């Protein structure tokens, strides 16, 4: 059976959920071989084996943290040459897309980014994408070379599928260009204890209607009652009320949770681009004409300062 290379996104050995989803998709096309790089790379093996990796290629070197992107491209290329896979799958993060693109160029392949589904096809894997702010779905394939495809979080269910997951050290020689862009400083993001925005099953977002940084406590309280992640519109982020890392939309995160709750958000096309594929959409807005109501499964026309706290209380009461 053909092997499929899966690039592993992990934090010090803890495999992030989108990679486990990738393994489920990879198994539709062939046998997943995982590539894990950097600090803790070898610690990823157990989780990857549990979810179907037949092999885990690992490599650690200080270059991965000290220089931008290129060392990882060199390593993925080394893995590609060692394995000769039928396809290469990479999580669709900002960095993942850059790594995938440079690899594709080096190996003479086409690249598809931001797939939301993947299936085996007669002429190679067929990727589903959601385009023009999710108003269209397309099906595409790579026409030249080995398909390189990046896949968005929440595109497949995580499946347990125990496999050997034998760890092998990958031999990597860094290219002359690997040290071109130096990382001279790094400030890690502080954890909020809430689920990761792109991975969360429920996202509760606030917009300009929240009207102030301090009022975001109302949004956070609802999120916490539901075990949800917190999102924000660009208007709320630009006003300085909430961090940019929480922005949902075209230039922020693209989310596709089971439930999306928008409060005080009008539903501009650029915001919709990042949340329109959510399974269930709920909105609270005092303007009955707000475009967000075109998307909703359930909407409340009302003042979020009344509706949201009442909802939070009710959720808490029901959850006991």
């Amino acid at each position, binding site marked *: 059976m053909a092997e499929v290379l899966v690039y592993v996104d992990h934090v010090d050995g803890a495999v992030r959920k989108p990679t486990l989803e990738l393994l489920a998709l990879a198994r539709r096309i062939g046998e997943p071989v995982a590539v894990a790089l950097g600090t803790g790379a070898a610690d990823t093996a157990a989780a990857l084996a549990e979810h179907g990796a037949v092999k885990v290629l690992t490599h650690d070197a200080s270059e991965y943290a000290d220089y931008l992107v290129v060392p990882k491209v060199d390593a993925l290329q080394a893995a590609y040459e060692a394995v000769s896979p039928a396809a290469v799958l990479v999580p669709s993060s900002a960095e993942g897309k850059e790594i995938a693109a440079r690899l594709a160029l080096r190996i003479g392949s086409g690249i598809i980014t931001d797939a939301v589904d993947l299936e085996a096809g007669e002429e190679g894997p067929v990727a589903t994408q959601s385009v*023009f702010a999710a108003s269209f779905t397309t099906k595409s394939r790579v026409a030249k070379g080995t398909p390189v495809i990046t896949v968005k979080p929440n595109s497949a269910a995580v499946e347990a599928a125990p496999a050997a997951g034998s760890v092998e050290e990958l031999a990597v020689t860094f290219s002359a260009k690997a040290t071109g862009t130096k990382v001279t400083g790094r400030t890690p993001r502080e954890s909020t204890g809430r689920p990761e925005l792109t991975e969360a099953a429920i996202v509760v977002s606030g917009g300009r209607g929240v009207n102030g940084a301090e009022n975001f406590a109302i949004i956070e309280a609802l999120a916490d009652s539901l075990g949800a992640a917190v999102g924000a519109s660009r208007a709320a982020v630009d006003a300085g009320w909430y961090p940019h890392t929480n922005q949902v939309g075209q230039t922020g995160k693209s989310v596709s949770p089971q439930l999306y709750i928008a409060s005080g958000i009008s539903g501009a096309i650029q915001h919709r681009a990042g949340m329109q594929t959510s399974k269930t*959409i709920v909105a609270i807005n005092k303007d009955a004409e707000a475009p967000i109501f075109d998307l909703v499964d359930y909407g409340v026309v009302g003042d979020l300062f009344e509706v949201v706290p009442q909802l939070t209380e009710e959720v808490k009461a029901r959850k006991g």
Partner: protein
Amino acid sequence: MSLRIVVTVKYVPDATGDRHFADDLTVDRDDVDGLLSELDEYAVEQALQIAENADDAEVTVLTVGPEDAKDALRKALSMGADKAIHVEDDDLHGTDAIGTSLVLAKAIEKAGYDLVISGMASTDGTMGVVPALLAERLGVPQVTLLSEVSVEDGTVKGRRDGDAASEQLEASLPAVVSVTDQSGEARYPSFKGIMAAKKKPVESWDLSDLDIEAEEVGLENAWTAVQAVAERPARTAGTIVKDEGEGGKQLAEFLASQKFI
């Protein structure tokens, strides 16, 4: 010595218009109004600021696109760029990201550069890969997705706000930079700028000017193929209630009925 900055700008269909696909499954660029991608305005803005802070600098804006793409160049010129290059060729229709990066890279080399500045992503394709591809093709450092950028003494520095951390980056010129919409509001063209832009030079190059064969670009030769396109079914109309004191409770009832609580 003059700092030569090339800004890559894309002409895109207006996102607030009715965007759709043409019969050959490429993006329809005829029926929808186009404009300079809003995300590339940030690139133009940073280029102008870097040029203003340099002793001697020249900002060239470059686009690969159809006849109408000149509008995007005009806008960038009226913001303050010095000159423009338009790569246009019938054989370019349907070129994908890998092909576009080839054309841009050849044009950038022909123009001469110390610094390339791109937007974070095009608003139609939204891939966000062209800057990385340019760095790979040109063989120079990639300093991408910056929310802050500066150039001094032949070194480009910037801040990249990633998911896990905010990173400070540094590279020597020549380099390829891309900037995000967090990098600072783009200026509006002034009346003077609009008038001045009319006199600024716009060069037109075709594939032969860049020594690119027709077989290397275009829809037929693309590295990816779109097989099918479907309009997403409109979401079925949901229930909308007016809050009369019980809105939060009604919403909770709905969430419970959907097993979210």
